[in-house]
């Protein structure tokens, strides 16, 4: 019987890992000693970072998604179904359709879910760009606002030292809002206020989750006349009065409340009971080097579902995926693990509508901010429109 490697989730982490597994284990796959199978609850693969551009009328839905099967090597068995329950003791997953699938090795890459409903009033009165429909709603407001106040807040998970999704996104979009309003000729009548909570992973009273970047931000914002406030931890929102209230006791009015919402793991992961995260967030306890789930055998996790201090980003998946592939290959071939993740995250930040800034960091070193420029912008735009799909196919 072939050993089955089962991957849950056809997002960026699962897709690049499935393709890479087939090429790494090609002798075993072609001789049918190993089977690579993927379960995902959607036949589509979404390039999620493009939701951010949807909020600026830069992407149509069909441009940011591809049929999942077209991104997978033909050796991979792909099934569209939703995992309803993980039966770790039985090495099996049970799906909402009633089907069950056994595994020898399991990789969980089910991402995270934006959950504005976890803050009173935020779902009703706030906007965000972390999913397609909310991003469309935000686009309508950003394209029509003539005067008033855009108030930006960032919400972190309650679990200590775990970041929100894509750390740089709030800065990227703040600068994009500024550029857009200038293009529309209404910037002088719209105030933009960027805020950051008191606790941001290991930092206190900063404007970003890493100190070096935090230090350069005031200059960047002042040059663009963007107001900024530290220590604004969103507590609740009054949708009728359009007021955001912080845990620190401040009240701020807004015309648009652009909030990075709370996030959580998907239901099946939360309900598995393996997570130790507070507030029912569901992050899986992850060995920061081997990418195994603590306490479970032959189960690996990656991407947005981990409880590691690194960014919940495609750029993290890109560095975690080869480690998992090597570790599963070495388990199959040698009977032990052999690779370790060093916390590396690589990305090209979109700094305003035109400029880009390549960045990287790991467990040891923080991002060193460099001046954003148009060449970086071209790199980012080419990534959005083309290179991403090569990354998903495991080619880059």
């Amino acid at each position, binding site marked *: 019987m072939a050993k089955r490697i089962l991957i849950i989730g056809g997002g960026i982490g699962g897709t690049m890992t499935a393709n890479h597994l087939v090429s790494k284990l090609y002798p075993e796959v072609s001789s049918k000693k190993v089977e690579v199978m993927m379960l995902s609850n959607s036949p589509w693969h979404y390039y999620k970072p493009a939701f951010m551009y949807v909020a600026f009328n830069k992407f149509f839905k069909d441009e940011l998604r591809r049929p999942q099967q077209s991104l997978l090597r033909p050796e991979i068995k792909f099934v569209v179904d939703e995992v309803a329950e993980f039966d770790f003791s039985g090495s099996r997953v049970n799906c909402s359709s009633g089907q069950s699938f056994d595994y020898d090795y399991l990789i969980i890459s089910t991402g995270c879910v934006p959950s504005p409903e976890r803050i009173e009033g935020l779902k009703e009165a706030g906007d965000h760009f972390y999913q397609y429909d909310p991003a469309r709603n935000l686009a309508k407001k950003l394209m029509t606002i003539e005067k008033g106040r855009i108030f930006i807040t960032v919400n972190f998970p309650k679990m200590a030292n775990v970041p929100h999704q894509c750390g740089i996104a709030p800065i990227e979009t703040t600068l994009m809002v500024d550029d857009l309003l200038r293009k529309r000729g209404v910037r002088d009548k719209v105030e933009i206020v960027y805020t950051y909570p008191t606790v941001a992973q290991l930092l206190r009273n900063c404007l970003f989750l890493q100190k070096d970047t935090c230090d350069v931000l005031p200059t960047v914002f002042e040059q663009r006349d963007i107001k900024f406030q530290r220590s604004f931890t969103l507590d609740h929102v009054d949708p009728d009065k359009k007021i955001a209230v912080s845990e620190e006791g401040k009240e701020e009015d807004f015309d648009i409340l652009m909030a990075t919402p709370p996030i959580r793991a998907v239901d099946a992961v939360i309900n598995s009971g393996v997570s130790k995260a507070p507030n029912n967030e569901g992050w899986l306890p992850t060995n920061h080097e081997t990418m195994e789930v603590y306490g479970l055998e032959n189960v690996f996790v990656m991407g947005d579902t981990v409880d590691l201090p690194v960014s919940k980003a495609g750029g993290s998946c890109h560095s975690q995926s080869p480690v998992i592939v090597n570790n599963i290959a070495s388990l199959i071939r040698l009977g032990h693990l052999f690779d370790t993740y060093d916390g590396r995250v690589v990305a090209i930040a979109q700094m305003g509508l035109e400029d880009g800034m390549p960045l990287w960091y790991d467990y040891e070193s923080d991002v060193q901010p460099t001046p954003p420029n148009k060449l970086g912008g071209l790199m980012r735009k080419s990534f959005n429109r083309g290179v991403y799909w090569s990354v998903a196919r495991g*080619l880059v």
Partner: protein
Amino acid sequence: MNITNNTELPLEQTNSIRELSPAAQAGLEELIDKVEPLLAGRRLNRIVDVMSITADVVDMTDDYMIEKLCKVYEEAIGGIWNAGNLARMAGSEVRNMEEPPSTWGLVKMARDPEVRRGLAFMIMMAKGLGRQTSEPLPEE
């Protein structure tokens, strides 16, 4: 060429050169020695031209151009990748056959719905080819 002994340099320039460490100064001198013949032969001008053209390309490129170029890139790479994968997989399946399938075996293989879909794909490609070549070109 010894720059450090040149007392005629303007103030800011001398300052900045004096701030260099001895190792950096030696490196700078070496670099200048290297560049000197390129300057004399006007060959460095070509490098400046390349930089200028690169800057022009960066400035001329707009979102629409990126969109079109990236589509070509994705379709080309995706097409090659897919064709390569299919050929590799088919090759491996055929190599693993102990004997080539009999004619009846081939017919049996065609009962597999995935094989039928694949064959239908080939036939649809043939239809497309036919459509593209259906219009006879009259002699001028």
